[in-house]
C-alpha cells in the first residue's frame, strides 16, 4: 500500500516536472524582455499620459497626445519617417531578390561574389554611414569622378544627397546594410526549398517568368515578409542615421523625440514620450496591416 502511494507521488512529481519544464525554459528570456522592455514602455506610457511625479504631474490627461497629433510639424516628421522607412524596405526587398537569384547560381567567382555580398551584414550602421558620406557628399568620391569625367565643374553642381529633404544618403545607407540581409535570407530559403518545384514546373513547360512568379515568389514570400517587417521596424525607429545624414528640419520622429527627451526642460518629457508611443503604435499597426495583407495576397 505504502509502495503504491510512493509510486503515485513519484508519477505526480514527474508530471509536475514535465509541466513546469517549458515555462522554466522560457522564463529567463521572457522575464528579461517583459521586465526591461515592458517596464520601460509602461514608464513611458505613464509619462505620456501625464503621470510624472518627479516634476509634480500626476493628473491623467490626453493633452500631450492632443498637442502632438495636431502639430503640423509632427505630421511632417511622421510622413518623412514613413517615407524613408517604406522606400528603404521596398527597394531592399526588390534588389535583394534580384541579387539572390544571381548568387544562387554556380559560376566562376560566385563564391567571392557571395562573400563580398555578405560584407555589409555584420558592418555597424555608423560605419556604413561613414563610407557613404565619403562617397556621396558634394565633394565626395562620386562628385570627384563626375568632375574628372567633365560632368560637373564645381562641387555645388553635384546633387545634394546629404542633409537633403529626400533623405537619399539615409536611404542609401539603409540599402547598403539591408539588401544583403534580405538577400541572404532569401538565399537560405531557396536553399532549404531545393530545386524540385522549379524543375517540376519546367517539366510542365513553364517559362522563366512563370517559374519566377508562380513557383519561386510564393516560396520566398514568407521570408521576404518577415525580413521586410524587421527592416521597416528598424529603419522607422532608427535614430543615429537620420540624425547624421538628414535635414535638421524636418527631422525624423525618433530624432525629434530624443531631442525633446534630452532637453533640460523636464516639462517637455511627456511630449517626447507621447511622440515615441505614437511612433511605436503606428509601427505596430502598419506591420499588423502589412502582415494581414501579405498573408491574404499569398493565399
Amino acid at each position, binding site marked *: 500500500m505504502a509502495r503504491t502511494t510512493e509510486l503515485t507521488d513519484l508519477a505526480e512529481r514527474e508530471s509536475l516536472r514535465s509541466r513546469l519544464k517549458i515555462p522554466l525554459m522560457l522564463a529567463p528570456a521572457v522575464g528579461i524582455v517583459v521586465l526591461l522592455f515592458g517596464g520601460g514602455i509602461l514608464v*513611458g506610457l505613464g509619462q505620456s499620459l501625464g503621470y510624472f511625479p518627479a516634476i509634480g504631474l500626476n493628473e491623467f490627461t490626453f493633452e500631450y497626445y492632443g498637442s502632438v497629433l495636431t502639430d503640423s510639424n509632427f505630421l511632417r516628421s511622421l510622413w518623412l519617417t514613413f517615407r524613408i522607412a517604406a522606400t528603404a524596405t521596398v527597394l531592399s526587398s526588390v534588389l535583394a531578390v534580384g541579387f539572390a537569384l*544571381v548568387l544562387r547560381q554556380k559560376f566562376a567567382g560566385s563564391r567571392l561574389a557571395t562573400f563580398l555580398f555578405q560584407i555589409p551584414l555584420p558592418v555597424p550602421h*555608423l560605419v556604413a554611414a561613414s563610407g557613404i558620406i*565619403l*562617397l556621396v557628399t558634394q565633394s565626395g568620391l562620386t562628385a570627384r569622378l563626375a568632375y*574628372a569625367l567633365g560632368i560637373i565643374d564645381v562641387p555645388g553642381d553635384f546633387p545634394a544627397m546629404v542633409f537633403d529633404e529626400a533623405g537619399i544618403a539615409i536611404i542609401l545607407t539603409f540599402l547598403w546594410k539591408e539588401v544583403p540581409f534580405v538577400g541572404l535570407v532569401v538565399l*537560405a530559403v531557396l536553399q532549404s526549398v531545393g530545386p524540385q518545384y522549379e524543375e517540376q514546373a519546367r517539366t510542365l513547360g513553364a517559362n522563366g517568368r512563370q517559374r519566377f512568379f508562380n513557383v519561386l515568389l510564393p516560396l520566398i514570400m514568407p521570408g521576404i515578409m*518577415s525580413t521586410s517587417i524587421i527592416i521597416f521596424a528598424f529603419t522607422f525607429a532608427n535614430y543615429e542615421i537620420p540624425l547624421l545624414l538628414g535635414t535638421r528640419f524636418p527631422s525624423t520622429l*525618433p530624432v525629434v523625440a530624443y531631442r525633446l*527627451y534630452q532637453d533640460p526642460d523636464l516639462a517637455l518629457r511627456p511630449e517626447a514620450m507621447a511622440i515615441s508611443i505614437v511612433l511605436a503604435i503606428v509601427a505596430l499597426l502598419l506591420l499588423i496591416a502589412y502582415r494581414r495583407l501579405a498573408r491574404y495576397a499569398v493565399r
Partner: protein
Amino acid sequence: MTVDTKEPAGPAAESQEYVDVTERPTVTAKWVRRLAVASIAVAVGLPMLSLVVWSFAFRWNFPNLLPSEWGTQAWAYVADDSSRVVEGLWNSTKVAVLVTLLAIIVGLPASRALGQHEFKGKSAVEWVLMMPIIVPALVATMGIHQIFIRLRLTETLFGVALVHLIPAIPYFVLVMASVFANYGTALEETARTLGANKFRVFRYVTFPAISSGLLVASMFTFLISWGQYVTTLLIGGGTFVTLPLVLFPFLSGANHATAAAISLVFVAPAIIVLVFTSRQLGRESSVMGGFGRI
C-alpha cells in the same frame, strides 16, 4: 510585393546546378549576372576602400581622386589616449562579450522550447519575444533610463549591457529556435534510448548539431551590442563610452581621415566575424532562414 520584370527574374533564375543539358544560361543571363556581380563589387568595395585610403590621407581636396599628401596622423590620434578610442574599444568589447554570454544563458533554453516543443500559448510567447524587434525600442529605452537612474545602473557597464539585451535576446532566439527546429529531437531520443545520460546527450549529440548555428547566433549577438548607439548614449550618459560614441562626433565633422580610421577600428571585429561565419551564412546553409520566420 511585385518584382519589376527588369529584375534578372527570367533567364537568370536558372542556376547551373538545376539546369539540365537542354537548357543553358542564355547570353542575356550571363550579362545580367556580370552586371550584378560588378555592382556588388563596386557598391561594397568603394565605401570600404574609401575608408582605408582616407585614413592615410593628410591632404585630399576636391577634385583630386587620390590624396595629394599622405600621412599616418589619423592612426596616431587613434592610438593616443586623449582620443578615447582605445577606451571605447575596450568598453565595447566588455559589453558585447557580457551581452553575448547573457543572451546565450537566457536564450538557449527559450529557443529550444520554441524550436522543439509545441505548447499552449506558444504564439503568445513568440509575440512577446519578438516585440523588441517590431516595436520601436526608443520609448522603452527612455523609460528604462528613468528606472535605471533610480537603480543607479546608468553610466555602468552592467546597465548598458542590460539595455543591449533587449534587441539581443529576440535576435538570438529567432536564429537559435530555427536551428533547434531544423535539427529536431529524433537523434537525442535515440541516444537516450541507447542509455546515454543527459550530460552525454548534450555533449555528444545536441551540442555538435547546434554548434555552427550557435556560433553564428552568438557572433550576431556580439555585433548587435557592438553596433548600439542611442541606447549606450542614453544609459551610459556620455561617461561610459563605447566605440560608436567615440566615432559619432567625427562623422559630422570635417576631419574625414580620423573618422575613417576610427570607422576601420570599429569595423574590424565585424570582418573577423564574417570570415568565421561566411560559410554558415552562404547559400549552402540555412542558418539565415531563421530571420524569415517571424
